[in-house]
């Protein structure tokens, strides 16, 4: 694991290179201990042990499958969001963008009575366009991404409701379960498969695939180095010839892609999409990335960490229910648990770097 993820020393380009050079001189264990996601790994073990010891149902295979599924719905988005955050930007529109994508596919297919795959292709174009627009406005105006994507978030929220109402006359899309291509699309985006007699949702598999691909890009390719460089210090990255604008726009489009995938999952899992949903989820994606060791300032973090962060959230959200704690306290505990994870994270990081 740690060998696989060892970053190659980037070309002398400012962003983080001094750090990586130091790392290569250390022992394997030391190298492992200073990885960004180790803190979250410790946090995950603590959270898991806690629920494992107090909640009986938590110990069953079915419960683990449910938790993995809940984590994957956040985790798939956290892949794109973590990459973007390593590149030094935020995306507050990611939560509603998922719904936008599901709505676009469903209504396009229904309105024009075409195969749902055509709707899915249209939605992909829409999602990538939203990502491109976010990145393009950011690069053009030089505004902070917080403001650009906040505006996009509000605009999308309005569009979701307004256009759905215009097209269907309702506030949710029409059920498209009987349309051509629905079954094959469901097989891709929302089926489940059996592992040791337990039904696991396919999103868990996709999640792992996305994490692996994103990790490979970050650790083994030029683009990965660009992302770290842009997030670490934009100006020096530009000075050594990193195409900053293209990297940023590409990162926003990557979030667009993951939003498209999550939107397709919602649509084919549940047949309809509610236009008013998705608000607030963008913070969960950011939280998952931060718990996993990404810094809010950019230039540091890993996608594996974001995956562990999403898993911590999934365990907490579902574990509280398995443990039978009072519903009114759910979000207090979710918040406390995430805080605990972040604190452990920071503590492990300082300890490991001290030695």
């Amino acid at each position, binding site marked *: 694991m740690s060998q696989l993820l060892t970053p190659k020393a980037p070309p002398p380009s400012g962003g983080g290179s001094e750090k990586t050079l130091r790392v290569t001189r250390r022992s394997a264990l030391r190298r492992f201990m200073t990885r960004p996601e180790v803190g979250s790994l410790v946090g995950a073990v603590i959270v898991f042990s*806690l629920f494992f010891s*107090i909640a009986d*149902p938590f110990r*069953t295979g*079915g*419960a683990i499958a*449910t938790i993995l*599924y*809940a984590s994957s*719905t956040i985790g798939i988005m956290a892949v794109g969001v973590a990459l973007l955050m390593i590149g030094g930007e935020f995306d507050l529109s990611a939560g509603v963008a998922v719904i936008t994508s599901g709505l676009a596919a469903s209504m396009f297919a229904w309105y024009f009575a075409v195969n749902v795959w055509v709707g899915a292709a249209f939605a992909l174009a829409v999602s990538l366009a939203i990502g491109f627009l976010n990145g393009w406005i950011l690069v053009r105006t030089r505004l902070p991404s917080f403001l650009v994507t906040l505006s996009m978030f509000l605009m999308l929220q309005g569009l979701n*409701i307004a256009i759905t109402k215009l097209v269907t006359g*309702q*506030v*949710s899309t029409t*059920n498209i379960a009987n349309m051509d291509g629905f079954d094959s699309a469901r097989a891709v985006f929302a089926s489940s498969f059996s592992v040791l007699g337990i039904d696991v949702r396919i999103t868990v598999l996709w999640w792992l695939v996305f994490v692996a691909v994103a990790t490979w890009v970050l650790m083994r390719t030029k683009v990965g180095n660009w992302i770290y460089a842009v997030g670490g210090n934009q100006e020096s990255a530009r000075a050594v010839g990193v195409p900053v604008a293209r990297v940023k726009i590409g990162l926003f489009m990557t979030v667009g892609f993951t939003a498209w995938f999550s939107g397709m999952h*919602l649509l084919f*899992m*549940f*047949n*309809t999409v*509610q*236009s*008013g*949903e998705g608000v607030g989820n963008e913070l969960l994606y950011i939280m998952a990335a931060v718990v996993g060791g990404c810094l809010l300032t950019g230039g540091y973090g890993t996608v594996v960490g974001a995956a562990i962060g999403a898993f911590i959230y999934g365990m907490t959200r*579902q574990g509280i*229910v*398995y*443990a*039978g*704690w*009072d*519903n*009114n*306290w*759910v*979000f*207090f*505990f979710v918040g*406390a*648990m995430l*805080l*605990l994870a972040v*604190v*452990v994270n*920071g*503590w492990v990081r*300082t300890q490991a770097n001290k030695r």
Partner: protein
Amino acid sequence: MKRNTTYTALLAGTASLLLLGTACSSEGGRDTASEEGVDTPELTIAMITHEVPGDTFWDIVRAGAEDAAAKSNIDLEYASDPEAREQASLIQNAIDREVDGIAVTLSTPDVLEGAIADAEAAGIPVVAFNSGIEEWADMGVQQYFGTDEHLAGTAFGERLTEVGAQNALCVIQEQGHVALETRCSSLGEAFEGDSEVLYVDSANMPEVRSSISAKLQEDDDIDYVVTLGAPIAMTAIDAIDDAGSDAAVATFDTNSELVGAIQEGIVQWAVDQQPYLQGYLAVDSLWLYNTNGNTSGGGTEPVLTGPAFVDETNVDEIAVFAEEGTR
């Protein structure tokens, strides 16, 4: 070093908070009177709703559910999430816990279809309440307790015509909520005057107040403000004052504060769907099914809990119960 102690203190603090939390029991706030209870074996029932946290309506539903649970030796596990897919996860979660019954609100029937089918496959009886009157029977849900939004909206619209209203404003507090849309559209069909819809966000009351007030200033023909929830009605009263309008308020659903307002004549009437009854019957029906195999409505007909009107003629007797938070 100093930084280290801060972290340790934070860690200890968070950990102790969590420990405190685990010490709280999951039971509701009532002392269960075991003396009056039954001696049937203990059952675990999961109740899953689409509550937006902090709405008084759901407190009343929960009060009914808790009372039924206390009476019948039931361990009630209540969970809620306004997002449809989270509700589906919570149902899956209840299946994993192997509960003896699931009571669920079908505000988004299509989304919950799969999870409910899984529950039935696992042999767990499912009853629906509060919303989903059109769909529950087709989904294999065995019983339904609640009202028909279309009926309630129609009754409301007819009453508006009766009192001679001309222009009604229908305030929807949760954009994208099918049941609320149905109330306003049915009301509009039955009402002979004009009605229009205003969207507000119930999670943000100051915004609700200013939106209604701005609308009333912009259109001074509006003579009735119709709200779809008791807390919104109370806010609408303030908004009417702000706007200096002389519009009257009538609402769907009640709470103790609203019953007081009807007594004082500030609110004209409320259509009551009796949330206490919905919660109570949903839990009790699962107990009956588990202990005696009964199904209310025989699996095909809904059990209606409304619509009933609360107005100056009957408000005094209801006020007694409203004080206790059960009407």
